[in-house]
């Protein structure tokens, strides 16, 4: 079983819409959860990380962890064309990061 699962399907939304991205993880012992953003032909950059359960907000971005269902989410409010990128979830599993496959998000002006 993979440590992190992320449905890699692309997502196109109109500018201003809310983007909702999700991942599931396998091990209830995992405590750190991260979201990375990767622009085309660049390395991933850390967007947000949360420890344990609950929500974390940073501007237009909200990361959410539901440990009861082993579900992690990222919400982008008022999406902008500059948010067009691939978003990867990650968790610290077995003393190293385990990544999802990433969701390509396109925000259409």
């Amino acid at each position, binding site marked *: 079983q993979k440590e992190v699962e992320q449905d*890699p399907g692309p997502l196109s939304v109109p500018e201003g819409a809310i983007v909702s991205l999700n991942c599931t993880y396998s091990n209830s012992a995992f405590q750190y959860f991260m979201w990375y953003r990767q622009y085309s*032909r660049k*390395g*991933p*950059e*850390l967007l947000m990380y949360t420890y344990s359960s609950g929500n974390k907000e940073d501007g237009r971005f909200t990361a959410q962890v539901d440990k009861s269902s082993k579900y992690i989410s990222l919400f982008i409010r008022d999406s902008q064309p500059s948010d067009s990128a691939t978003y990867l979830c990650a968790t610290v599993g077995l003393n*190293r*990061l*385990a990544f999802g*496959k990433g969701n390509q998000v396109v925000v259409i002006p």
Partner: protein
Amino acid sequence: EADIYQTPRYLVIGTGKKITLECSQTMGHDKMYWYQQDPGMELHLIHYSYGVNSTEKGDLSSESTVSRIRTEHFPLTLESARPSHTSQYLCASSLGVEQYFGPGTRLTVT
């Protein structure tokens, strides 16, 4: 912004050549990592280091080798490149759990 650098950014090379991908960071991080990334796939850890003279193989079987003689430098070497090595190679470093990535090297082996 993370200060981690990779060279070259792009490399096209013939089968059988020896290549070294360079990675340097100026943040003084003890931990460094090499990942391989193919389109639509997860990042796969191929090597990591927790400090000078410490290197370990990651989850993905790789024919590459690494060295860590200085804290800031973590080069990856392929002794004999093959077309199956065509991929994006990402270097990262960390102090805690968050990893900071370089821009990547896109390698094409013909």
